[in-house]
């Protein structure tokens, strides 16, 4: 329970007008510089001493759970360790302070970073090229669907306006489809939690634009017939889109490109150790097969050899001898997706992570991510339902359905009980097709000891649920606050502080 002195009033409720920190020399008064009617009359913001600012946010941070705090098995989010070397590299002044409108000749190192990363991703995932432009996974989905739309338009098939998504798909998939005016067709998974090519065949047609899938799917299961599914979609004239949120499962083992995907995104903030930062910023490179390269967002980084000729290398090439340019002049491009070229600081982090692993290392990463997830599944399958109890990939879905029936304790309650034990909760109630589900993704950076401790905690909670369900229903009690009145939050929205009248 928070102590009185650790209560954290809003920053607006503290401070005194004029309690200024001396960061800058003193400027002339604003009204000597600009016409009065251009100026605002009032700026009702607080003045706090730097000390009070530090204390305020230090306390807030201590009431925030991160990977650095403890195990964070949040399915679909790949909460792996964020190496501190990445942050140090992103903080190198020459790169950190580079202006996007600096001329290319003064930005060669930054362009080399982008180019090296792009080449690494293309090789790792079997795509012809990536654009690093989109700011997150959902943003990349939008870019990809705009590419698809442009592609079909150019091909003279503008009628293709249906996006097929399995019922296990993430919410961003249909939402992105809607943003390009596509209709969404939700496809039911089969009894094994997979997409059945025969079912797919029933729904594809001349209006099929794109089929969006992820593999392993959001149940953590590999789609063994993905190749057949892709064939079906391709035969119907559609494109296959790979949602890369689950890319941590397959690096160096199989590639979306080899599975038959034409488009894909990556959540660099998942697989490539970019700190999630409370939910962003992330980065969502969008990758395409050869026939779609021309449609990528602008700008793209182009490389030139020592001879000044454009490089057409595909694999990994040492960048030191090359020169680079940003290419904005791409007539078929869908155009830019955002203000500037990329979430560049995160490209640095992702490339640092590639350096730290190399191809072999990334392959091992995926293998051990799968190992950790299976280990947890195998260790709790006797106490929770495992709707698809088979070898999973980097994550798996358990269910509290039986438990709920027996005891009234739901997935949500297990989540809260885990918080009380000092763990973050798994993702709950996603994917939508498994009732009372807990989606558990440990990632490869966790040690066996950590997994064992988590398994023990979860088993103990389930045991308590059976012996004394009220205790579990009353959780959390060890956290800064207890369960929150969400209804009130939504019914009487209080989304900001207001100055007292």
């Amino acid at each position, binding site marked *: 329970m928070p102590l009185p002195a650790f209560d954290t009033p809003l920053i607006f409720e503290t401070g005194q007008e004029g309690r200024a920190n001396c960061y800058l020399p003193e400027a002339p008064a604003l009204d000597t510089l*600009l016409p009065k009617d251009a100026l605002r009359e009032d700026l009702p913001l607080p003045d706090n001493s730097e000390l009070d600012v530090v204390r305020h946010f230090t306390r807030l941070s201590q009431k925030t759970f991160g990977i650095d705090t403890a195990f964070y098995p949040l399915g679909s989010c790949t909460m792996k360790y964020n190496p501190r070397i990445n942050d140090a590299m992103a903080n190198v002044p020459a790169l950190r302070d580079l202006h996007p409108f600096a001329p290319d000749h003064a930005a060669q190192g930054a362009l080399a970073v982008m180019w090296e990363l792009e080449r690494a991703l293309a*090789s790792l995932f079997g795509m012809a090229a990536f654009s690093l432009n989109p700011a997150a996974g*959902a943003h990349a989905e939008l870019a990809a669907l705009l590419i698809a739309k442009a592609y079909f338009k150019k091909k003279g098939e503008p009628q293709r306006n249906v996006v097929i998504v399995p019922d296990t798909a993430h919410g961003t998939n249909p939402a992105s489809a809607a943003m390009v005016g596509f209709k969404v067709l939700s496809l039911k998974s089969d009894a094994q939690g997979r997409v059945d090519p025969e079912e797919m065949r029933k729904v594809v047609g001349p209006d099929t634009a794109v089929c969006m899938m992820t593999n392993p799917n959001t149940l953590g299961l590999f789609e063994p017939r993905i190749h057949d599914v892709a064939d079906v979609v391709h035969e119907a004239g559609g494109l296959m889109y790979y949602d890369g949120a689950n890319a941590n499962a397959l690096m160096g083992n199989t590639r979306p490109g080899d599975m038959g995907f034409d488009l894909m995104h990556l959540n660099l903030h998942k697989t490539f150790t970019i700190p999630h930062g409370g939910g962003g910023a992330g980065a969502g490179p969008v990758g395409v097969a050869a026939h779609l390269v021309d449609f990528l967002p602008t700008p793209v980084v182009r490389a030139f050899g020592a001879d000044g000729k454009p490089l057409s290398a595909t694999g990994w090439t040492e960048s030191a001898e090359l020169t680079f340019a940003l290419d904005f002049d791409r007539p078929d491009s869908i155009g830019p997706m955002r203000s500037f070229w990329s979430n560049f600081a995160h490209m640095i982090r992702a490339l640092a992570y590639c350096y730290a692993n190399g191809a072999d290392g990334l392959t091992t990463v995926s293998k051990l991510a799968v190992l950790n997830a299976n280990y947890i599944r195998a260790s709790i399958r006797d106490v929770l339902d495992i709707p698809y109890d088979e*070898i999973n990939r980097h994550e798996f879905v358990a269910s509290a359905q039986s438990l709920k029936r027996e005891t009234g304790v739901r997935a949500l309650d297990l989540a809260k009980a885990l918080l009380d034990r000092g763990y973050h909760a798994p993702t709950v109630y996603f994917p939508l097709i498994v009732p009372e589900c807990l989606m558990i993704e440990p990632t490869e950076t966790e040690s066996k000891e950590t997994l064992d401790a988590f398994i023990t905690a979860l088993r103990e909670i389930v045991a308590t649920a059976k012996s004394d369900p009220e205790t579990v229903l009353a959780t959390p009690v060890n956290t800064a*606050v207890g369960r929150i009145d969400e209804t009130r939050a939504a019914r009487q929205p209080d989304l900001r502080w207001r100055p007292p009248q």
Partner: protein
Amino acid sequence: MYTPHTAQDIEAMLRVIGVDSLDDLVRVPDAVALRAPVEVTPRLSEIEIAGRFRQHAERTTAGAYTAFLGAGAYRHYVPPVVGAIAMRGEFLTSYTPYQAEVSQGYLQAIYEWQTYIALLTGLDVANASVYDGATALAEGVIMAVNATGRKAVLVSKAVHPNYRAVLRTYAEGLDLDVDELPYGEDGCTDLSNLEAALAEQRYAAVVVQSPNFFGVVDALPNGIAQKIKATKTVVIGVVAEAMSLAALAAPGSWGAEICVGEAQSFGNAIAYGGPHVGFIAATTEHLRRIPGRLVGKSVDSEGRTAYVLTLQAREQHIRREKATSNICTNQAHCALCATVYMAAMGKTGLRNCAALNVARANELRAKITKLDGFAARFGGPTFNEVVIRVPGRARDVLAALEKKQILGGIELGRWYPELDDCILMTATELTTSADVDRLATALSEIPVRAAARV
């Protein structure tokens, strides 16, 4: 590599799983087996990684130039306290605060961010952030489209060209028409034909930016917003330089119902363009059309103040294709940096900083326009940027400056062919008088006058 597994660990775990080897565990059908070996960078130790980035840094020479670049990405002083706080591991490595009980700190910080943005823009509510200024504009337009059911939007040409380009990218998806309003001789949006344009009531929104891309204060004059609203058209204000909000009339005060923009200037690095942080503020009327996350204040089971993500029925993970946007990951950590920055600067510090920006840009304008052949292209009052007409082609002048280790600004001809003799020059609190003098001297020395058009 960041995997803690010893050989014994792996063996013991495989045994529990009941599989013989790691390879068995990850086996895929032959049909999808790797077609080509993966080629990534060679594996390096940390010390070598640092060495490699040192090379990349050495090839990135822009820092050695005196620079007058802005145009949507601004060099401002970031007090070290911002990094010291924002890089704390709990903030850095947390995810979206879905489990509110263990995320009260971050949730409160975002609630504070929402408040800062609402107060600065003079509007009722603000969201937890969007990707950047350009996508904020696109999302803001979508809000207006959803509010009005109209599929066209009228945008000032003085809105950042990149923002307009992104809007066009999004518009392609949504089948929106994007029409433009010209700018006038004072550098402000030319509103003379506005009434006519609105008459048809086909526009979901009118979009203006202030300070606009030319640095000119371009708030809607008195009465105009009312006229626009009278046609049930939404007024969207764009702010690409958030620092200006500390000085200039709040967009809400001149009629914006939705204000979108970019807050990189508040404590975030330029970082070659990202991550920056977009914001969307709006009147309460538009609340349920706002994209992305919103943090609300509520109470817990014991009646204690508690913060929580709210109004999630707008969002993709609940509403899927019916969501207000597809956004999921946003720019929370950049918003946190901005919040810490604003808290540290305070009202007094922000206003002082804004004033310094105006003063330094005024100094730049004064010193450069004193030079023969150089003039301010537009008349209106400016914040920290000014468009300078040069004798000759802007491109040549900039190239000549680069030879003198100066990045003199941005060539407007890139987007405005009619302004190909114009440079957008930026000065902030980090621009010194010595910097401006260097620029003036360099400009007075370069032989571009020869190339001047007659």
